[in-house]
């Protein structure tokens, strides 16, 4: 059993959604709680069982009431748990906190959450569990952590316990004082924040707060208090830099009490772990920032210790302090020192790369005492960062790629700021880029290649206007390309991105021209087919630029296809042929086509006659015909139509698409994937056998009703199916491409084995304007449990493309498997009642899987009647007018029954249940819970 749980829990945590689609969250939760209460299960397993509750409480406890009940259950497990299994108790506390916080019980001050907070406070004060094992975290510490988390999620909740918490912190001498300190400062910070939001609050209120004299501090109405805690601003950091507005509490200089609390926390800060110290300092900073009566200089004594630290979080919190207090705590010398320190740390040999990169980021967001450009979060160089100082951060070829790019970026900003375009700094950067290029040239790894192109983009982004360098870079890239044609996609990506980001700059065009030149002037003898395929890609891109003359491109193509040793024509490679045609096609659209007419016609004619692939020949012939017969305007209209394809517009597949090069062609041949579901299945309301009412219920089976009912099942396939009707509708937002779709084939795949595999369903067409077609799913249950079905579809859009789309899952609810008693329609009510009676007696014996159960709820008579009419009418065996007891028979294929006797007692409505399939009970239970609670609300 234990190993089974291990597997199930890990399956759950791996993918909660798919795990829960196979079961019911309520059922799973019930199972977890049952196992947790089981004395036979080991604590190891129980700890495991708690992990879904800790990590995904909202999935399991969907509503506040479920959260509340779960918490009550867990608390009873806690009270029964012996004190010696302290690890499990700790895990339980964490799980309880998770459940109560996430199901909003805490924020709504539910009964269970208040009890739980009392329990936590009790544990916190219980010093009898002085625990011997140093490293084991005892429940006392965990209780503090839980309180901390509750206060963080629901700020101000513990404000009235401030005095108690302060006392606990002061008394504690073991290492646990750290947990108390964390809790104390957080509660204090939130309490002060609340005071700042109360009009007229001042020193007296603050004093009362610290003394625990809450009647004074909280004479303000509870409404305002709730307002503050619901405001998410209180949860967010109050250190926002010089522009951030921190709410303040005006106390005047008289706040001795607060000052002494803060000093005592500061004094003991040294005793905390670096992580807790950092958190403490940040909270203290916030408090001091909110109370102007306390001067920031109270931090002075700690500063030197913090500035020399090797701990990243301690130095970071010091920077945040500087951000909050600027020159009221940090002198100009301090500022200079701190910046230098950051530069040192950004390249310190003993620090890890992530730490160094983080420090570099801190340089670019350095909190200056007197910032020049304030407000925006954009990166900016601190004034004090001179090129001299920044030179410690020059990139080198030995840097890892992230460091290299970060340094390059920083240096670029430095040199840009200096405005020294001809300077040696820029020369260094360019040399560095060249060094990288050489490594790429010598066969550097993929990582280096990508890094080089990113570095090149950065360089261009900042320095494309320095002609000398950008021209050289362009030249070097061309040479690099010639040596390594496989870099074509990287180079084209660089071209596209430069054009996109720097539309003013014509560097990219220059590079394309350069590439065209090196390709067309390189000796053909050494050209391999692989190179050729890359060249064609590049030339196709070059041909898209109207400003670049295409003469040399055509010269190259002509040479490639006509030279005597050319393998190209004889090999008849379809892909390469398409590559050549791709270039030709773009040239056909080129503005300077008139001057290119003859060489282009020659090329096309040659391809038509000599290319070794018929398809290419045909296409070439078509292009040739178009070129020689159509006017330029017509040509561009015909061709441009398909060139614009993929722009989200509906395009008719015309002749021009067929003759387009490989991309257009493969477009038609491949199945495309939609980005989002295009249509969905929505449940169609089925008027479930209303006609029943109109029939004469005359046939009476007498005593043998049950027998003849049973006899029907000997016939195979009897009553084994559930029919579910759905509408096939478009999803929103609507996509004009899919306004009209045809030949839809729906495919269903099951997520579990509760049902037999479903057949595919074909739908001829789906138009947005017309009423949705009805799709009938025929489900054959093996076990009638709720399930989820994945649905996908293949269809054809109006423009002739074939698409594959994933549709939203279809969820089959438990109640959808309900069928009325499967007997001939002519059976009389009495016979049906006989069957009910017979089955009921049988199930009550509780043999095999038979079981009875009772569900109670509070429903008024009218509500009950409405409920039965709404949900159970088709399944009613007795007469609705019958006052005392209603009988409902639910048949669930293939052979399960759930029988209900519903009666109203004085104070409650009882649903007596009997079933022959024990496993259905949890589902039935949660179904009843849903229908009764919703009925309850609707009637009220």
């Amino acid at each position, binding site marked *: 059993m234990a190993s089974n749980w291990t597997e199930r829990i890990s399956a759950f945590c791996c993918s909660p959604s798919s795990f829960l689609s196979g079961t019911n969250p309520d059922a799973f939760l019930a199972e977890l709680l049952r196992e947790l209460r089981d004395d036979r299960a080991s604590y190891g397993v129980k700890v495991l069982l708690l*992990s879904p509750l800790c990590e995904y409480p*909202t999935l399991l406890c969907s509503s506040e009431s479920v959260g509340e009940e779960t918490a009550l259950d867990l608390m009873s497990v806690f009270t029964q748990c012996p004190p010696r299994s302290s690890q499990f108790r700790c895990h339980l506390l964490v799980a309880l906190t998770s459940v109560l916080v996430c199901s909003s019980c805490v924020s709504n001050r539910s009964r269970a959450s208040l009890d739980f907070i009392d329990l936590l406070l009790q544990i916190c004060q219980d010093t009898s569990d002085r625990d011997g094992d*140093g490293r084991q975290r005892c429940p006392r510490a965990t209780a503090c952590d839980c309180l901390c988390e509750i206060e963080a999620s629901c700020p101000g909740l513990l404000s009235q316990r401030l005095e108690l918490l302060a006392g606990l912190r002061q008394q504690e001498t073991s290492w646990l004082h750290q947990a108390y300190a964390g809790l104390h400062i957080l509660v204090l910070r939130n309490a002060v924040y609340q005071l700042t939001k109360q009009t007229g609050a001042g020193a007296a209120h603050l004093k009362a707060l610290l003394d625990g004299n809450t009647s004074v501090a909280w004479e303000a109405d509870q409404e305002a208090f709730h307002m503050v805690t619901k405001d998410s601003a209180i949860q967010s950091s109050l250190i926002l830099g010089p522009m951030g507005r921190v709410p303040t509490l005006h106390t005047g200089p008289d706040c001795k009490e607060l000052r002494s609390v803060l000093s005592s926390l500061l004094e003991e800060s040294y005793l905390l772990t670096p992580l807790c110290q950092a*958190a403490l300092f940040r909270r203290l900073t916030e408090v001091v920032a909110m109370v102007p009566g306390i001067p920031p200089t109270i931090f002075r004594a700690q500063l030197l210790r913090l500035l020399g630290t*090797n701990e990243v979080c301690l130095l970071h919190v010091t920077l945040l302090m500087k951000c909050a207090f600027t020159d009221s705590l940090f002198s100009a010398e301090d500022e200079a020192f701190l910046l230098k*320190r950051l530069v040192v740390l950004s390249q310190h040999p003993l620090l890890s790369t992530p730490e160094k990169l*983080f420090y570099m980021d801190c340089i670019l967001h350095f909190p200056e005492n007197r910032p020049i450009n304030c407000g925006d979060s954009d990166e900016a160089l601190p004034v004090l960062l001179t090129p001299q100082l920044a030179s410690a951060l020059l990139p080198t070829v030995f840097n890892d790629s992230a460091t290299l790019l970060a340094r390059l970026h920083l240096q670029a900003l430095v040199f840009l700021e200096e405005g020294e375009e001809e300077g040696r700094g820029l020369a260094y950067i360019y040399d560095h880029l060249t060094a990288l290029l050489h490594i790429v040239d010598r066969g550097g790894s*993929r990582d280096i290649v990508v890094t080089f192109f*990113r570095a090149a983009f950065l360089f261009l982004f900042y320095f494309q206007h320095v002609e000398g360098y950008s021209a050289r870079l362009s030249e070097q890239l061309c040479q690099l390309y010639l040596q390594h044609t496989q870099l074509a996609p990287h180079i084209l990506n*660089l071209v596209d991105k430069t054009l996109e980001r720097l539309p003013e700059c014509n560097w990219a065009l220059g590079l394309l021209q350069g590439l065209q030149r090196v390709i067309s002037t390189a000796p053909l003898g050494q050209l391999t087919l692989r190179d050729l395929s890359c060249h064609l890609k590049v030339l196709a891109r070059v041909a898209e630029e109207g400003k670049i003359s295409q003469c040399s491109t055509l010269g190259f193509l002509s040479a490639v296809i006509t030279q005597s040793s050319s393998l190209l024509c004889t090999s008849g490679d379809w892909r390469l042929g398409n590559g050549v045609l791709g270039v030709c096609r773009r040239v056909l659209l080129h503005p300077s086509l008139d001057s290119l007419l003859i060489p282009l016609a020659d090329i096309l004619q040659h391809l038509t006659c000599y290319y070794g692939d018929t398809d290419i020949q045909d296409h070439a012939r078509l292009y040739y015909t178009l070129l020689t017969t159509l006017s330029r305007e017509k040509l561009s209209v015909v061709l441009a139509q398909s060139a614009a394809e993929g722009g989200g517009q509906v395009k008719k597949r015309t002749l021009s698409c067929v003759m387009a090069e490989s991309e257009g062609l493969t477009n038609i041949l491949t199945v495309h994937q939609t980005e989002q579901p295009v249509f969905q299945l929505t449940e169609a309301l089925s008027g479930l056998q209303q006609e029943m009412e109109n029939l004469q219920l005359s046939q009476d089976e007498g005593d043998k009703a049950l027998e003849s009912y049973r006899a029907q099942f000997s016939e195979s396939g009897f009553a084994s199916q559930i029919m579910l009707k759905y509408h096939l509708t478009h999803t929103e937002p609507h996509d004009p491409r899919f306004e009209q779709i045809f030949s839809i084939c729906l495919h269903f795949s099951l997520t579990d084995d509760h049902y037999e595999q479903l057949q595919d369903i074909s739908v001829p067409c789906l138009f947005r304007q017309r009423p949705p077609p009805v799709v009938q799913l025929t489900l054959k249950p093996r076990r009638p449990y709720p399930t989820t079905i994945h649905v996908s579809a293949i269809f054809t859009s109006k423009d002739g493309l074939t698409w594959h789309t994933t549709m939203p899952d279809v969820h089959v609810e438990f109640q959808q498997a309900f069928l009325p008693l499967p007997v001939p329609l002519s059976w009389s009510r009495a016979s049906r009642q006989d069957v009910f009676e017979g089955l009921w007696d049988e199930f009550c014996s509780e043999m095999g899987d038979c079981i009875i159960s009772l569900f109670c709820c509070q429903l008024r008579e009218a509500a009950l009647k409405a409920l039965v009419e709404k949900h159970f009418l088709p399944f009613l065996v007795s007469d609705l007018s019958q006052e005392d007891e209603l009988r409902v028979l639910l048949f669930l294929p293939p052979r399960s029954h759930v029988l209900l006797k519903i009666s109203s007692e004085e104070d409650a409505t009882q649903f007596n249940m009997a079933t022959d399939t024990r496993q259905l009970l949890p589902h039935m239970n949660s179904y009843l819970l849903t229908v009764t609670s919703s009925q309850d609300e609707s009637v009220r």
Partner: protein
Amino acid sequence: MSLRALWIISNEKGQKASIRFSKRFSTVEHRARNLAGSSYVAVPEDSDFLQLLLTELGLSNSDKSYVADRDDCLYRPRSPAVELRLNGKGTLWPVLVLSQGPLILACLPLVDILSEPRPPLANLLSVSQGVTLLAGLQTFLLGSGVKLDSEGLASRVATLPSLLLQVCPLGTPFDTPLAGTPTASTVPTSTVTHKQPAWKTGVYRGRATVNVAVVETVRSMQYGNQSRQDLWDVYGTVTCKCEVEGALPNVTVTLSLPPNGSPLQDILVHPCVTSLDSSILTASSVDNADGSAFSGPYKFPFSPPLEPFRLCSYTSQVPVPPILGSYQLKEEENNLRVSVSLKLHESVRNSFEYCEAHLPFFNRNQMGVVDVKVSSGQVDVSKEKNLLVWGLGQKFPKSREVTLDGKISFTGSSLGPSDPLCTGLTAYIKLYLKVPDTTLSGCCVDQHSVQVYSSAKPRIVTSRELQSKEYFIWNSTGSAPVSSGQPDYLCRFKKSCWDVILLCLKTRLLVPQRHQVFDEATDSVRVCVAEDPGMQTDRQHDGCFT
């Protein structure tokens, strides 16, 4: 200051990357939802997360040379915080990532600043806290990092749930996991009068002992070229192990320099140091060195934790490198003529624990005939026949200069390793050395300067040691892989060059070298056996090198 989720991923070569452990902190997630409001982006399920992260780190589709999503030049991964672009569902930011060896650790800190589009990383305390926690977990999972054993890793991953209950039960990290448990006998603190530090879980009982070790590391790049400045630098660490009674005992360690020593710079201290003199922090390597700078003694008062710890670290600018080398290669017909000379500076103690010069050859066939003469020590050819190892033993000769001359033919049957940096005559010698009982900066800890405020007289042990790391001597007849033209005023470049030098050696093919274990944790190569390299020549190399 909290984390929403945490992942530990293993990505071993030749295996599919998988999530070994993941944890979501639901209450923090609850806060994240409240804080972010409509711009809230949920954490994807594990399998989706893994795929997105691998793409982001450039680790997906490793067989394809260009993938648009992964290799776009516009995109600059801003480590340590990357963003994951969820398909049409916003971006997940900031995902902190630490990767080392086969492990990738990631976490998602809570963004507690309401800001559009997004606040700077530097304003989120949870980022540095996340980095600290991840680094702690990394050390815990990989141990000292000599070699990853998958069983050890699996067992350590299995202890994570209970470990996280201690250090980060609800998403707010309180501490980093302790890498090694203190060996000293400790007792729980029941009768303390003073508050006990949270980073100290017990109290030592027994004889007081204080162990202070100063280890200096020297790095160098020597080009033997007029136009290019040789570079070297030194950094040191002071490691302590203190076994002293009391909840908060006081210990003071004082570092001192010789009278003419150059000041210690860039001093970083352990958080257990109680106070610092501001003059100690003033000297910095990025500053113009000031002759009048404070040059000690450097006093560090602290209260020690139970486990060994790095009390402080520093850098120093020493006037000369310990060994000055020259390396010349000449391509002759079928042969490579090699000429090396190494000079030990007179200020350095001539007594090594080991000293070896490694001469790797890339982009060539295996070595055929090796005809070299050395004036001292002994030369071995590695088993793979692409590396010469010149063992210099424990001492340089009286003249303090050694030479190696000879010819090597590369007529072996198979091709040796390739390398994009070391093509043609671009080649280097790498020195491995360790000198006990000395430091280059002259920094030392005097036994008598260690003060322990306790009743019993403590035992005090101090030691010094100099070692090398990334000590390269480039062939002066080839072009060294550095950007040319260092502007004069940029001679500070010196420092920056040292950063992560090993990268190139990590990313490219390396010759497996004998006697060495590559230590991923410290990025250094440890020489395991150095007493008698000759004895080891044919021992099977265990392949630790990546």
